[in-house]
């Protein structure tokens, strides 16, 4: 699935997000320091914000085209979005959350059935659990399952592991890798952790103050000299 972002422009507080890119990777990392415009870019693609100018195209479908006055609302984009905090509905059970986006009129693709998704994410046993009783890692897996069960064409993950401690991150990375391999849903993966990008992504877009600073395969972008720079920037926030 090809994602075309052309002439995309959105003024933010201190800078203007400006993106021109065609993304074709299975998992593309949007990498950059906090406040570089990563989340805003995801929101533009999800239709949660409207850009000042530009076009967003997913496969053959134009989702946003400012010049043509076209804007597909988020509920008709088939673009899944998992924000950093998971944003599970606290008044519903795990099951209630998971089935929220199920389209009862349309059977899911064979890989994205309820049974298979909950099995891969290891959340089947949590079915009747209340959201308040889930751990951080469980919340993220349920949020991911909920997004997948809505049968998205594209999945946007906003730092899904950022709030978790190191051992939990290490346990969840293979789960994310399995999600990538089993479901064949292309993903944009926002992160500022080099190890996550190296483990999961086949393409990296480095964002800095709203501009694409670098683009390429993780191994090429994070060459040792570069990596130090990015790691330093990450630590410095």
């Amino acid at each position: 699935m090809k994602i075309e972002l052309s002439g995309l422009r959105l003024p933010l507080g201190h800078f203007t997000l400006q993106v021109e890119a065609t993304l074709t990777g299975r998992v593309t990392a949007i990498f950059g320091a906090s406040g570089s415009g990563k989340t805003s870019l995801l929101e533009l693609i999800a239709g949660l914000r409207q850009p000042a100018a530009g076009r967003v195209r997913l496969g053959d479908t134009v989702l946003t085209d400012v010049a043509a006055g076209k804007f597909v609302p988020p509920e008709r984009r088939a673009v899944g979005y998992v924000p950093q905090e998971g944003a599970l509905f606290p008044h519903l059970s795990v099951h209630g959350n998971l089935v929220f986006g199920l389209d009862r009129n349309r059977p899911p693709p064979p890989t994205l059935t309820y049974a298979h998704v909950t099995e891969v994410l290891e959340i089947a046993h949590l079915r009747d659990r209340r959201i308040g009783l889930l751990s951080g890692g469980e919340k993220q897996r349920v949020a991911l399952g909920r997004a997948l069960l809505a049968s998205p064409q594209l999945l946007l993950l906003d730092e899904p592991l950022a709030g978790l401690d190191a051992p939990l991150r290490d346990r969840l990375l293979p789960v994310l890798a399995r999600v990538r391999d089993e479901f064949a849903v292309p993903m944009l993966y926002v992160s500022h952790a080099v190890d996550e990008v190296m483990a999961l992504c086949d393409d990296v877009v480095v964002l800095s103050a709203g501009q694409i600073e670098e683009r390429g395969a993780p191994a090429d972008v994070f060459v040792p000299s570069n990596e130090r720079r990015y790691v330093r920037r990450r630590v410095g926030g």
Partner: protein
Amino acid sequence: MSDDAWQVTWFTVGVAALSTLLILPFGVALGWLLARRDWRGKSIVETLVALPLVIPPVATGLILLKLLGRRGPIGGWLENTFGWEIVFTWRGVVVATAVMSFPLLARTARVAFEGVSPRLEQVARTLGAGPWRVFAQVTLPLARRGLIAGVLLSFARALGEFGATIMVAGFIPGQTATLALSIYHSVQLGRDGEAMVLLAISVTIAFAAVWASEWFLRRKAP
């Protein structure tokens, strides 16, 4: 308790319930608009809605009297179109209590909606839910505690309304006499015993309503 006291009690509770029911959709809608949307004139509307809380209820009553009287712009139209008389009827009591308790409902609803994370609504949209489904299945259930508290609070306010009601509906025994008006009337006539019974009823109902409202607000979030 005398038949009159029962009649006054049921009338008051009925009128308060009806006025709360009448303002419910508008209060919820306005609370949502104030919490979730930016629009021209928002601050003017906010101020207007708060006015009945701060200007003397009798003054609000006078404004309503001028608007709803037979020669008033709204009252004249209602009478000619539907044959409804408002002033000095039970309808006048409903309108007066509705106007006086509306600010409480709208403001509580606003706070309740502001407490719902917009992120949850956004995520619901990306899961295929249109704006109405998001409102019905995400926003409303998450704001419900605050909304119920607001309803109970405006019901309690309607129960005790005096100033605007006496202006718009007067004191007509058996027709517009609420608990508050009857207490005042009894004291005026030196019937302190009657007044004390009505006072006890008022305090009991109001206590129950306010206590329930607080209970809903304090209940732990899920």
